[in-house]
C-alpha cells in the first residue's frame, strides 16, 4: 500500500531514495545473516538430536541400575548412602558469539580429581550395583553438560533466526515496496507538474502571440482605412 501522505517534492524524493538504498542494503545483510545462522543452527540441531537420543537412552539405563540397586539394598539404605555428596561440581560459564547470538560455553570443575573417588559412601554397607550406577551416571553427566550447552545454543539461535527472518520479510515485503511506490508516486507527480508547466507556458505564449497578432491586425486595418480614404 503506497503512502499517499508523502509530499511530492524533490527533497522528499531524495530522502526516499536514500531510505530505499539503506533498506536494500540492510535487507541483503540481514538475509546473509539469516542464511549463515540457519546453517549453523541446522548443524547444532543435528548434533542436539543425536546427543539427546544418546543421553536419554543412557539415562534410562542408569535409572534402571539405580532401581536394581535400590531393590537389592533397600531404598532407605540407598538414600542414606547418597545423602551426603563427597564430590561437588562447579561450573563456569563463558559466552561465545555466533553471528551476534551469545551462546553459553560451560566448563566444569570437580572438587575431587579422580573419577574413582566420587563415591560418598563406604563400600561395606552398600551393594556393588550402586557403584556401577553412580559410575554410569558420572559418564552420562559429561554428555548431559554438552547437551545443555548445545541445546541452549539451539534455542537461542532459533529465537535470533526468527527475529532476523521477521526483519528480512518486513523489509522485503513492506518497507522496500512501500518506498518504491512512494518514489514512483513522487516521480510521476513531478513529471506531471513539469508537463503542466510546459503546457501552461505554451498556452500563455499562444495567448501573447494571439494578442500581438490582433494588435498588428488592428493597426494594419487602421493604416489600410487611412490609405483607402486618401485614395478616394
Amino acid at each position, binding site marked *: 500500500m503506497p503512502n499517499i501522505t508523502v509530499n511530492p517534492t524533490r527533497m522528499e524524493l531524495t530522502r526516499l531514495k536514500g531510505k530505499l538504498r539503506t533498506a536494500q542494503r540492510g535487507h541483503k545483510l540481514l538475509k546473509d545473516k539469516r542464511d549463515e545462522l*540457519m546453517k549453523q543452527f541446522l548443524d547444532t*540441531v*543435528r548434533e*542436539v*538430536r543425536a546427543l*539427546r*537420543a544418546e*543421553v*536419554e537412552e543412557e*539415562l*534410562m539405563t*542408569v*535409572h534402571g541400575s*539405580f*532401581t536394581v540397586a*535400590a531393590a537389592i539394598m533397600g531404598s532407605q539404605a*540407598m538414600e542414606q548412602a*547418597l*545423602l551426603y*555428596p*563427597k*564430590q*561437588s*561440581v*562447579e*561450573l*563456569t*560459564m*563463558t*559466552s561465545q558469539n555466533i553471528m551476534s547470538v*551469545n*551462546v*553459553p560455553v*560451560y566448563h*566444569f570443575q570437580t*572438587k575431587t580429581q579422580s573419577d574413582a573417588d*566420587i*563415591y*560418598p559412601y563406604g563400600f561395606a554397607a552398600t551393594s556393588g550395583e550402586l557403584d556401577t*550406577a*553412580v559410575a554410569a*551416571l*558420572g559418564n552420562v*553427566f559429561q554428555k*548431559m*553438560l554438552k*547437551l*545443555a*550447552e548445545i*541445546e*541452549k545454543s*539451539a*534455542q*537461542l*539461535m*532459533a*529465537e535470533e*533466526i*526468527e527475529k532476523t*527472518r521477521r526483519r528480512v520479510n518486513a523489509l522485503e515485503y513492506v518497507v522496500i515496496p512501500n518506498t518504491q511506490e512512494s518514489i514512483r508516486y513522487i516521480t510521476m507527480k513531478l513529471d506531471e507538474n513539469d508537463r503542466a508547466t510546459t503546457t501552461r507556458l505554451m498556452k500563455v505564449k499562444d495567448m501573447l502571440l494571439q494578442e500581438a497578432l490582433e494588435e498588428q491586425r488592428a493597426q494594419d486595418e487602421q493604416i489600410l482605412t487611412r490609405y483607402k480614404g486618401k485614395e478616394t
Partner: protein
Amino acid sequence: MATRYRIAVVGDWDSVMGFRALGLDAYPVTDAEEAKEKVRELARTDCAVIYLTEQLAKDMDDVIARYKDELRPAIILIPGRAGSLGIGKANIQRAIERAVGADIL
C-alpha cells in the same frame, strides 16, 4: 567472568537421587507447582543449568518458556525414572519450526 555457577537437578526423588552423588544440587520435588517455585528460585540465584524431569516439565510450560530465550539458566529436560515422554525431542522440533517457519527435518 569467572563467576561460579551451580548445576541443579529438579525432579522426583527417585530420579534426582543419583545426581546428588555426583555433586550436583539435587532438589526433589513432588508436584509441578513446587517445581515451578524451585526453578524460579534457582534462576534468580546462581544456577546455570537446570535439569528437569519430563514428568514435571509437561505441566510447567509457562516457566520453561519464560527462561527459554535467556542465556541463563538453561533448562534441559531429562527423562525421569518413569521413562521418556518425548517432550525433549518435541522441543527440538519446535525450535526448528520456530526458526525455519516450517518443519523441515
